């Protein structure tokens, strides 16, 4: 069976959930080969990849791979495409993941599909476009299919793989080293699950009213074990940090449950959350467009509804 390369997303040595999803998808298309790029590789990481079906693990864990913008990872994947002739390559559709996919497509003369929300036989990808109004099935017709898949496109399912380890050396060209990362600045990260990976997201908008108001949004998220998101109105007002913005110019999320409180549902906001499986809305304006996509909505003041909801959840625990 042909290999399917899966570029591993990892943070502080830990494999991210989206990679387990991609391995799960890859198993239906061939034999998954995990590709580890950058420092932090360990036996624990390898075991995790094995648990979700990686038959092989290619490891390039030198500092150099993450020392420059995108190109070294492209060089690594291009080398593996050349040597292993995989049936396809799956990459998480994060902003950087899409850039890797795009550059890799140019370098290997292959087609690329971005933002797949599903993937089937023959690497036919499903895309949800125009803010979720149209569903498209598309496929790559030249070269090796390179697919950037949205987090939460499928549920990760464990299935033991052999995880045979193979070290890979990549020679970087001068062009690969043209954009040098001289400093990494990490902004504070709380104990909550990461926004794009979370199964539950609780988001607040202008209706929350203030930075302090986000206290109840956080509390609701914590009572559900979810992440916190925000509309652009809320991040622009400085009530919540920019990296939690959901939408066209923020993160794209596709959780099992999205709760929108005090958000009107502008097209730019919907573009980032429309593929959520279940949507719950709290808004005082019955005409707010967000109600059009709600599975369950309450017309009311979020400052009353949210605290009562938290109380009710705690009661049921």
């Amino acid at each position: 069976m042909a290999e399917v390369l899966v570029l591993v997303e990892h943070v502080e040595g830990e494999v991210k959930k989206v990679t387990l999803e991609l391995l799960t998808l890859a198993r239906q298309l061939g034999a998954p080969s995990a590709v580890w790029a950058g420092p932090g590789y360990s036996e624990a990481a390898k075991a995790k990849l094995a648990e979700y079906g990686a038959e092989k693990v290619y490891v390039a864990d030198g500092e150099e791979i993450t020392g420059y913008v995108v190109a070294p990872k492209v060089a690594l994947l291009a080398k593996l495409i050349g040597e292993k002739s995989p049936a396809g390559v799956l990459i998480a559709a994060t902003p950087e993941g899409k850039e890797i996919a795009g550059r890799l497509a140019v370098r290997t003369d292959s087609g690329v599909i971005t933002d797949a929300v599903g993937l089937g036989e023959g690497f036919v990808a499903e895309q949800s476009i125009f803010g979720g109004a149209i569903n498209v099935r598309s496929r790559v017709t030249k070269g090796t299919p390179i697919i950037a898949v949205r987090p939460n496109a499928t549920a990760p399912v464990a299935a033991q793989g052999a995880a045979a380890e193979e070290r890979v050396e990549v020679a970087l060209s001068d062009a690969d080293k043209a954009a040098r990362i001289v400093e990494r600045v990490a902004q504070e990260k709380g104990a909550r699950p990461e926004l794009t990976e979370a199964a539950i997201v609780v988001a607040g908008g202008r209706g929350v009213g203030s930075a302090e108001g986000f206290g109840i949004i956080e509390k609701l998220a914590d009572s559900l074990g979810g992440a916190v998101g925000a509309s652009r109105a809320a991040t622009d007002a400085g009530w919540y940090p920019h990296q939690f913005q959901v939408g066209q110019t923020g993160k794209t999320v596709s959780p099992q449950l999205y709760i929108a409180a005090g958000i009107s549902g502008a097209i730019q906001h919907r573009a980032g959350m429309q593929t959520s499986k279940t949507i719950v809305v709290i808004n005082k304006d019955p005409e707010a467009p967000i109600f059009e996509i709600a599975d369950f909505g309450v017309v009311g003041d979020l400052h009353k509804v949210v605290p009562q909801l938290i109380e009710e959840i705690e009661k049921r625990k």
Partner: protein
Amino acid sequence: MNIVVCVKQVPDTATERKLKSDDKTLDREAADGVLNELDEYAVEEALRLKEAHGGEVTVLTMGPAKATDTIRKALAMGADKAVHLCDDALHGSDALSTSYALAQVLKKIGFDLVILGSESTDARTGVLAAMLAERLGVPQLTLANKVEVNGSAITIQRLTDYGFDKVEASLPAVVSVVEKINEPRYPSFKGIMAAKKKPVETLGIADAEIAADQVGLANAWSEVVEFAAAPPRAAGTVVKDEGDGGVKIAEFLASKKFI
């Protein structure tokens, strides 16, 4: 500094956007074409860099004849001139072809800095800047929320999941900017009038040495197999809060096993 800003005409996000049933490409007639909102930030950043370091700002777009409206808006903001790559052979180009065609024009017209938006609001692939860097063999300085030029050195802050990376490189380079970088100016009346007289050069594929078999729908590296309107979300339940709104939501969440 010779700055080229790539801008795209996209259907207005406020109108209903469609694909055409015959060749499955974007229906550009169905909706008003506007300047991709995110490209306004690219134009603004180019103008600020020009104001600080001197030079010239050229707008580059690939698109049908009606994309001239988009060019005028960028010129009205203050760009000096424009290049419009316009040829029926380009219809239906995918990201691979589009990046190839734009790279050919950029090689022809020359640049110190190319600036793009982080993504378009229609196709949203977010790949073009990275593809151009690859094709042109220059540094990729993408997803910037801050750009600083000092002689031939350029530094950006690249937004990441965890915060940002500080990235250094030398010109020439390709930059893409996120919308947090600046506040785009509105064209002034004077700017709008001046834009009417600014030069717009129209190029066909032969003028830019673009190979016909590398562009257009028939030569794309990917294809749309089929598409359909998303089934409307099953109408949800909306209730008015009668003092029990939180309880009602909890009941709904319990019925779906979230709690």
